């Protein structure tokens, strides 16, 4: 996992031979180009419906979706659904990250524990996590606990694998530097292993979070009375496509925002990684 993270970074550093000014321009124009397609399609669809070529009943135009969001927001319902979903993701993510980090670290650090633990975890990983749903409901009931556990299961695996893989791939040569300076066990972990593992860990967290958002939808499909997933089901049953698309849009915004929070939060700790790309290009 650590390898796949670094490769794109290396490529960009190799590619940036262009002078800084045009590079800065490109930094702004490139995302903008990415926006052209969705915005264009949205506008085209809006126009199509507005000109009467389609009634837009099954595929609501952007204004309808926006109206649906505004309506939900005004009644205070939207905030309640968002809070419910957010707290489920937060609880499940927290639980999954905790378990994945602890077990991943143990498996990465102790060979014996890895031999003992890893085959079982890998076997469990092969099970599509949604397959657990009936069992979780039987064991934990239909309410919050089973939902949170399902999300946690989804988050657990990428975090576990990321942490274990990252520890296993720590450069032995750098560990040896720690040894020559006679670091104690805890000092070795704090001063060598943790910083070495951090980049891969952040990636694992982001992958885990993505899965957390995926699984919260699955969890809220199984008998929820609140939450964005409930809005989806409700929209389907009552034939309100605008509400469905509105919920999807909000999922996208929340997913992107939380991912961005992890990225921003970890950026100061990972400055050393992209420093090369930023400084040497201009010099």
């Amino acid at each position, binding site marked *: 996992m650590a390898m796949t993270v670094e490769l794109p970074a290396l490529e960009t550093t190799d590619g940036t031979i262009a002078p800084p000014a045009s590079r800065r321009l490109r930094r702004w124009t490139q995302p903008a180009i990415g926006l052209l397609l969705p915005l264009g399609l949205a506008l085209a669809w809006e126009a199509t419906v507005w000109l009467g070529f389609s009634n837009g009943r099954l595929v609501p135009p952007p204004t309808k979706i926006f109206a649906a969001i505004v309506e939900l927001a005004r009644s205070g319902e939207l905030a309640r659904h968002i809070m419910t979903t957010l707290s489920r993701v937060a609880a499940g993510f927290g639980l999954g990250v905790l378990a994945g980090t602890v077990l991943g670290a143990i498996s990465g650090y102790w060979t014996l524990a890895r031999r003992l633990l890893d085959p079982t975890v890998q076997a469990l990983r092969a099970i599509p996590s949604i397959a657990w749903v009936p069992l979780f409901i039987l064991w934990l009931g239909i309410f919050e606990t089973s939902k949170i556990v399902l999300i946690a299961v989804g988050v657990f695996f990428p975090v576990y694998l990321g942490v274990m893989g990252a520890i296993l791939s720590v450069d032995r040569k*750098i560990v040896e530097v720690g040894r*020559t*300076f*006679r670091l104690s066990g805890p*000092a070795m972990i704090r*001063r060598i292993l943790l*910083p*070495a593992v951090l980049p891969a860990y952040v990636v694992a967290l982001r992958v885990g979070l993505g899965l957390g958002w995926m699984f919260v939808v699955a969890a809220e499909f199984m008998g929820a009375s609140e939450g964005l997933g409930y809005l989806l089901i409700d929209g389907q049953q009552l034939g309100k496509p605008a509400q469905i698309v509105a919920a999807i849009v909000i999922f996208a915004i929340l997913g992107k925002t939380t991912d961005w929070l992890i990225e921003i939060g970890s950026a100061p700790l990972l400055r*050393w990684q992209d420093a090369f790309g930023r400084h*040497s290009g201009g010099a």
Partner: protein
Amino acid sequence: MLVLNGLGKIYPNGVNALERFSAEIRLGEIVAIIGGSGCGKSTLLRAIAGLDRATSGTVTLDDIKISAPHAKIGIIFQEPRLLPWLSVAENIGFGLSDLPADIRRQKVAGALARVGLADKADAWPRELSGGQAQRVAIARALVPQPEVLLLDEPFSALDAFTRRDLQDHLLDLWADTRPTLVLVTHDVDEAVVLADRVFVMRPRPGRLFEEIKVNLARPRDRNSPMFDSFKRRVLTALDRSLDRNVPDGDSKSTAGEAMWW
């Protein structure tokens, strides 16, 4: 005094990498170890460093037995091995974490200036050239003021010009506190310009084959006839260590080449 007494190393796979290696190295002496590839030079150095345990024999430094990394022994590897998440200054201060912050900062600043990288204090290791990175590694190893500094082919990844630069620089730094240097190299030039004694090893099993004293005053002129004659002596010993027959006067064929593999 660093005393190696009958050091031997047999790896778990049965390779007899080092056998009955004994030597006494005085404080402040510079010893170069040279020999064919795979003749146990790194094995020897790692045993002295306490990174790998020798299977027989002992290493003692001032009558202390060395079996694990020791504060008085520093090591520099072929690669700089800087920690990429620490700035250059933090890398140099890595071994000083026991000291109060202000003293540490002072020592690091001094070391940075000494290796001519004061302007790179806040740079990341990735932003350094190979030669600069190796200078940081030297500073990191020297700043805790070890009594013995071990170097395993420290300049072999650098171009010839930078290599010479760093050889001279290492001598300058050595002159400050005069630690013992034990340097593994493939470069006959490097051995003769730096060392008081050159140990030539022979492979399978790795043993001390010949010891050559380099009685040349420092700084040494790489172009002097004396320098050349020492180089020739080392090369001849190397050839003999590999059982290559070298008729008298024909050692020129290899003497012209600074690098010996």
